[in-house]
């Protein structure tokens, strides 16, 4: 029997933040606050906040709909409106939700966007997504901020300058115009100080998996931990407080030698430590997670928890160079890194957190994650001689989650890991 999920103080704080935001969103007519729809990777939440606007994240809404078992219906609705079966299911879920009245995750109606801000184009579907939304909301202003791909594995001064210029000439003027608020760099700098601090805490939190047993699951629980920065709270004192509290709770677990918390209580025995590449499946999130914790597998790092910001390699928002910091942040998104950079990042996770294996969850309808996944997996396998596993599912389309197939693959994978661990410990083929 599933136990009641354990409520920590950090969870309460997060809940308050989420509820606060959605309450504010329902009151925009009264408060006159402007609404900016934007995406998680490369989100300019600090800039949105500088102009006192409220963010709405369509991807987050889509995954929330999936967790509430609503995505299937929304997707069907979008398909009825001629969106093909192969289109990104986040898009279809979002479009379907809009067509059905745009009721958000808290059951409240979401306001229409005043701005559609696309600050990251590593995923080209994002562009099409907002083109679609523009047709639905003809009054919304569209801002397309082009983020150069890190093709050569670095952010050059020219790339930063290119982005800063766009921010100054295309982004900020529109935001000023729509919000009626004058751009205040001092305000942005002070917000970015909190972002920097939140970044420090996040890096520390995800680094606690170096402990054995790992006190957290950096994928299944990790997606909750990145919640505040992925829904627009990066740059707020609340986020800093949340992460500080979360870190203390985790360190408390470390002191007690406790493993991660799962929906069925605490994980008792850590048998396998894994690094996972790719987003999770949201329609069957609990079931998916259960396959792992039932087998004693804990995820010590995941690429997905880095979509809203990569803090592992030392990069932080620099409040003294505010626009440059925003530019760097966008370029430094996980899916904007080139493949060797991603391999380096994941390899560091595997090595630092002493992972036993590396699993790829390939998402049917996500191009930006899927491209290069197999090549990365092979490279990591060759380089680190770590056992790799490959499963396939989808983000929010329930039709593409095959429990028995995934379980079958993972069971085989875990048996393979256990065999190899045995060999490792005995140094002979006593299988």
């Amino acid at each position, binding site marked *: 029997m599933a136990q009641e999920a354990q409520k920590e103080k950090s969870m309460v704080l997060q809940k308050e933040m989420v509820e606060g935001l959605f309450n504010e969103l329902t009151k925009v007519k009264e408060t006159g606050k402007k609404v900016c729809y934007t995406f998680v990777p490369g989100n300019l939440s600090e800039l949105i906040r500088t102009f006192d606007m409220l963010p709405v994240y369509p991807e987050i809404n889509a995954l929330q709909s999936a967790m509430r078992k609503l995505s299937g219906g929304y997707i069907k609705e979008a398909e009825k409106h001629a969106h093909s079966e192969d289109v990104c299911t986040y898009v279809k879920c979002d479009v379907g939700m809009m067509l059905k009245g745009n009721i958000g995750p808290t059951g409240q109606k979401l306001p229409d966007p005043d701005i559609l801000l696309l600050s990251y184009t590593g995923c080209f579907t994002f562009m099409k997504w907002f083109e679609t939304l523009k047709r639905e909301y003809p009054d919304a202003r569209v801002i397309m901020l082009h983020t150069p791909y890190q093709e050569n594995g670095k952010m050059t001064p020219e790339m930063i300058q290119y982005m800063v210029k766009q921010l100054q000439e295309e982004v900020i003027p529109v935001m000023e115009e729509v919000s009626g608020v004058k751009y205040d760099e001092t305000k942005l700098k002070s917000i970015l100080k909190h972002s920097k601090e939140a970044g420090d805490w996040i890096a520390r939190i995800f680094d606690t998996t170096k402990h054995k047993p790992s006190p957290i699951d950096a994928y299944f629980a990790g997606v909750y931990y990145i919640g505040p920065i992925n829904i627009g709270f990066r740059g707020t004192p609340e986020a800093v407080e949340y992460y500080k509290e979360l870190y203390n709770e985790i360190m408390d677990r470390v002191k007690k030698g406790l493993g991660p918390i799962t929906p069925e209580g605490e994980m008792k025995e850590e048998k396998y430590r894994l690094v996972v590449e790719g987003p999770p499946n949201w329609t069957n999130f609990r079931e998916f997670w259960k396959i792992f914790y039932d087998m004693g597998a804990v995820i010590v790092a995941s690429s997905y928890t880095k979509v809203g910001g990569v803090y592992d390699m030392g990069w932080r928002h620099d409040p003294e160079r505010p626009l440059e910091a925003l530019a760097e942040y966008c370029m430094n998104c996980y899916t904007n890194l080139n493949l060797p950079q991603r391999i380096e990042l994941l390899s560091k996770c595997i090595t630092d957190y002493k992972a036993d294996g590396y699993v790829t969850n390939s998402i049917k309808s996500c191009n930006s994650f899927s491209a290069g996944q*197999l090549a990365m997996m*092979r490279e990591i*396998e060759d380089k680190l001689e770590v*056992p*790799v*596993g*490959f*499963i*396939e599912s989808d983000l929010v389309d329930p039709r*593409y989650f*095959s429990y028995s*197939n995934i379980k*079958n*693959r993972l*069971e*085989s*994978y875990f*048996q*393979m890991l256990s*065999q*190899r661990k045995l*060999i490792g410990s005995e140094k002979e*083929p*006593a*299988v």
Partner: protein
Amino acid sequence: MNKYYLGIDLGSTTSKAVIINEHDEIVGRGITNTRANYKVAADIARDEAVYDARFTLLSARINKDMESKPEFKRYMNDIRLVFRFQQFTRRMEKLEAMLKKTADEFAYVNKGAICDALDKIINTIRPQIRSEFIHGDLGSKNQFFRDIVSEKYNFEVAKIGKELYEPLMLAFDKSITPIENEMVQYNFKELVLESMSALEDKYKGLADQQEDGSKEDWYWAELNAVRNNYKNVEYTLRQHIEDIASEDIHIANMVGTGYGRALLPFPEDCIKSEILCHAFGAHAVFPNTRTVLDIGGQDTKAIQVDSHGLVTSFHMNDRCAAGCGRYLGYIADEFGLSLNELGPEANKATKETTICSTCTVFAGAEVKELLHNGEERPNILAGLHKAIVQRAMSLIARSGGVKNEFTFTGGVARNEAVLKYVKDMVRSSYGDVKMNIHTDSIFMGALGGAMFARRNTELQPSTEKAQTVLN
């Protein structure tokens, strides 16, 4: 007491069992295509493997005799074939009764004609099958009861005429499954002795047969040698049968694998993934194996193994079974062929028709369209076979490619056309790689399971546990 280890592979299409001894040598194998529940399938496969094991033990007793006189080997082989026929007959009798019962319950107005036709069919095919078993090599073709009977039955139904076609086919469809799924217990000793008597008749009859030129000279020479000498070894054999029939084939441990493994009433540590088992089995037979391709009923697995036979990585088809055995089964149905006929028919092709769709369901429509357009059957079949191998090759590429040596396992490895395309495509993509294909390819998963069972016992003695399960 000798210890044996059992591996059971419950696949989506067939269930296989392998028994090994303490030296990892295969002593018995059994296979069934029953679609009954997995427990029954496991029992049938296991019983078959136990009979097979008894034959292995029996052969071992007269090993020296067989080494000196090849005709004794032939005699043993004949006994096994007739034994299989006896098993077949027991089941056939049940099927005949079931067919009659089913027809009797029909409400067709021409029921009398149906029953008469049924009798006629049974009386025609029974001696045909007997003759093929005893004088041919039907028993060694690895064909299932259903395949053997349905081929002959369908042939006879086709001769009878259109108005009885539907009820006769319906009677068969309704009767075959329960009979196939029934556990039939055989008395080993009784059946072997019966087989030996049947052979006596056969050998006696040989003198009257003309050497009509249909068989090679060596065939008659060998048979004549058997006929003249079998009595010498028969006496020794009869002495051993008692012993062997009552010997306890002590299964010290067992491992279940395959799709149905979770449904087996085995303890957790006696259930292993089919990926690991196939790899381990293939590696045991071909120790230099580094890449294993297994094409089973519903999945295709590309597996990379290390020098110990342990899996380093694997890839399986997802969401679509178009490259698997079931695809071939579906195609066979479309053409009205048996699975065994597919490969040989495809190999008659003069060219490969391009099959655009590798979706099982769409391929059916495409086949109809191609036939309608006058395309030759072998050419279409060749195209279909090529298509499934192309899918398998793409899976191999995803799993890291083919490393030397390459072993092909699974039921589909028995299909000669698939084999041909696998060989061609592996060569063209990966160069001169040593390719291993074993006649027992379908048993690799069960073999791997049995080998894990033996090793598990070494790690932690679970004899008692396994025995409990077995009983």
